[in-house]
């Protein structure tokens, strides 16, 4: 159970640091908060997180090293099987397939899709009439705030065969988009669903770019792309990274694909959260599913480490 111990160990350190840091007097404190008050401010959140998040999460990681099942003989007396689940997962073609699909999903829908479209919207909407700007922003945000069950129905209506809007628009009603192009459909869906966050973030980031620099760029005749690359990007690099981290994590853990394709056809859109759900609920294999959750966590960790490294290089 390597992964889990690493997690446990690295979990402890920040807490130790936290206590030590507070004990040492906290460093610069412009708010005059005082260490004691600061602890008081953080404590309720940490308590709630500790009880309802850290504790079940660690327990889940523990279940990952057992053969725990919801029903059947193994449910009566679960046994610790150590790393078996992890080994089995790595060898399981369904898992590797899932891992690959999740990587594609995150890369194309979040890192590329939401990022670019979010930035493009933020950039373009600076120079349009307030009316158009509000309408566009409103629509983009609406797709972000609607409940996912409702959103699933909306997209069925777009992508289904015979009556689907997309088929009618493109004049090919016989295409069943979710069956014939499942991953492409999901990627486009997720761009639709999540762009709002990137757009909001970049809108505010662009507001922080000094107008004088943009003006200079315009005067020297820089093209739009050159302006973005040479003037804007250096200012918003940190935003780009934060945004990419958050949307990558959210996308990697997104369960909405289940509502649209249930992982099908024939596992062709079975991203990890869907696979885990199906193993846990439909298969009752809680031990195995927990082990896969842990591997998903490790995947998330890798994303976060890459992000931290990029951030540090900036600094």
């Amino acid at each position, binding site marked *: 159970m390597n992964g889990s111990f690493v997690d446990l160990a690295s979990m402890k350190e920040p807490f130790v640091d936290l206590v030590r840091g507070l004990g040492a007097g906290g460093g610069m404190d412009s708010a005059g908060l005082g260490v004691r008050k600061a602890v008081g401010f953080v404590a309720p959140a940490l308590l709630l997180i500790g009880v309802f998040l850290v504790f079940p999460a660690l327990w889940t990681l523990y279940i990952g090293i057992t053969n725990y*099942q*919801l*029903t*059947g*003989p*193994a*449910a*009566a007396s679960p046994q610790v099987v150590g790393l078996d689940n992890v080994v089995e997962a790595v060898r399981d073609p369904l898992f590797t397939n899932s891992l690959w699909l999740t990587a594609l999903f995150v890369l194309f829908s979040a890192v590329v899709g939401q990022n670019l479209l979010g930035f493009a919207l933020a950039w373009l909407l600076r120079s349009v009439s307030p009316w158009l700007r509000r309408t566009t922003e409103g629509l983009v945000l609406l797709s972000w705030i609607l409940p996912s069950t409702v959103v699933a129905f909306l997209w*069925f209506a777009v992508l*289904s*065969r015979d009556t689907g809007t997309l088929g009618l628009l493109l004049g090919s009603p016989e295409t*069943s988009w*979710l*069956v*014939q192009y499942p991953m492409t459909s999901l990627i486009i869906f997720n761009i639709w669903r999540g762009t709002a966050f990137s757009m909001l973030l970049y809108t505010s980031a662009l507001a922080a770019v000094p107008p004088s620099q943009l003006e200079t760029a315009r005067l020297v005749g820089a093209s739009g792309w050159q302006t973005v690359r040479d003037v804007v990007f250096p200012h918003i690099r940190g935003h780009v990274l934060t945004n990419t981290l958050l949307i990558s994590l959210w996308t990697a853990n997104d369960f909405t694909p289940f509502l*649209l*394709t*249930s*992982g*099908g*056809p*024939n*596992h062709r859109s079975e991203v990890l959260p869907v696979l885990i759900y199906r193993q846990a*609920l*439909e*298969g*009752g294999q809680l031990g195995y599913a927990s082990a896969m959750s842990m591997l998903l966590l490790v995947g998330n960790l890798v994303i976060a480490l890459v992000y931290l490294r990029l951030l540090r290089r900036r600094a």
Partner: protein
Amino acid sequence: MRRTKMFGLLAVCGLVAGCLGQTQEGDQARNADAKEITLTIVANAAQGGKNARGANWLQNWVIPKFTEQQKAKGVTATIKFEQNGTGDEDFKTKVALDLKTGGGGDIIEIDGIWLGEFAQSGGIKPLADVVGDTSWDGWDKIPKAVQGLGEFDGKRYGVPMGTDGRVLFFNKKLFAQAGLPADWQPRSWQDVLDAGARLKSLPGVTPLQLNAGTAMGEATTMQGVLPALVGTGKPIYDNGKWQGDSANVKDVLGLYQKVYGGGLGDPVLQQEANGRQRSFQLFSENKIGVLMESDYFWRSVVEPKNGVAKMADRDTAVGWALVPAKQSKAGVGGQDFVSMSGGGVRVINPNTKYPKQAWEFMQFLNSAEAVKESLAGTAQLTQRQDVNDQVLKGDPMLTFIAEKVLPITRYRPGLANYPKVSAALQQATADVVSGKSPDEAAQAYRAALVKAVGEENVG
């Protein structure tokens, strides 16, 4: 509001007590003379939602009636109904969590096929262990085969709630256009394929709908693989072993290949998340020729008034025929025709505080009067023969199921491994539909089966 809160609090205390104080269990006479009892019934039914009729019956008829009956005996009974009405897997998870932690309702309605899993995990116990004396005059009224739904490993765990049977439904209007008879009854798989070939000439019509693939879930197994498999002469679980890549399984996958490789079925439909519902819609729009389903299709899908895919002319347009074996006499038990059946079961939670009263409540739920009332004027195959004799008279389709299908039908093996085997079978059909050969698909199926149940359990 305050009251419900108090009840909630009490229920929580009850749950915790039930969880911590499991010493109660085992004493079948505990609280047998209590003057104040609380019983909870849990069902995957919700008023205004899934199985609304059952939910309304429990809430509006059973609870007041039973409370009244108890009152007459000087017992104050509080009966609660925990409504669910969600996906079967979600519901099963909830029940499993309840039973695992020693909580849950006193009487729980589950799918008969989960019985083995729950029994093996110790979540439920044989009825006699829970309530002691299980004698009841109702047993005589429930046919032996139907009682089998509530049994596991030769022991009785619960009381079945009714059953169903699978047949081939066909669209008589399309049959007339294709020059096929209105009283069609195929005698072999080839007959069905031949009819499909005739229907294929009609524009915009999919001749056959044989559920396939993983998106349909259990519907693929129950309305596809298993009826075909018993038509080859051997059920999926036989002599203590699951069938591997046997000739029979390959025959069944060969049938799938003929249907979906030969343009008689719509392969894309099988893979859509809403494929099954869509197939119903298409049938009702006269776009599917033949469709294998249980009597649920007749009662709740194409039913003219409340069906999910209403057919105003159902009574004249929809025909039905027995599912043929591969060829004459090739079916299981040497039968010419075959079918598969399933149904729900009510079990008593071993952790109940009032085993005797729960059993009494169970008998009430299964009394002729209650069962008849649960139908609310509609016709359906109930667990009780005496009720069936009365209510099925007006419905030729359901009479057909009761008289012609139930005598030849088979039930799924209620074993904990069944869901995994079922998933492997669904995958095998998905493989064939997406172009693999039956041999390849059968091999992959065997590998999945060995992984799921162990080499020693595969025949």
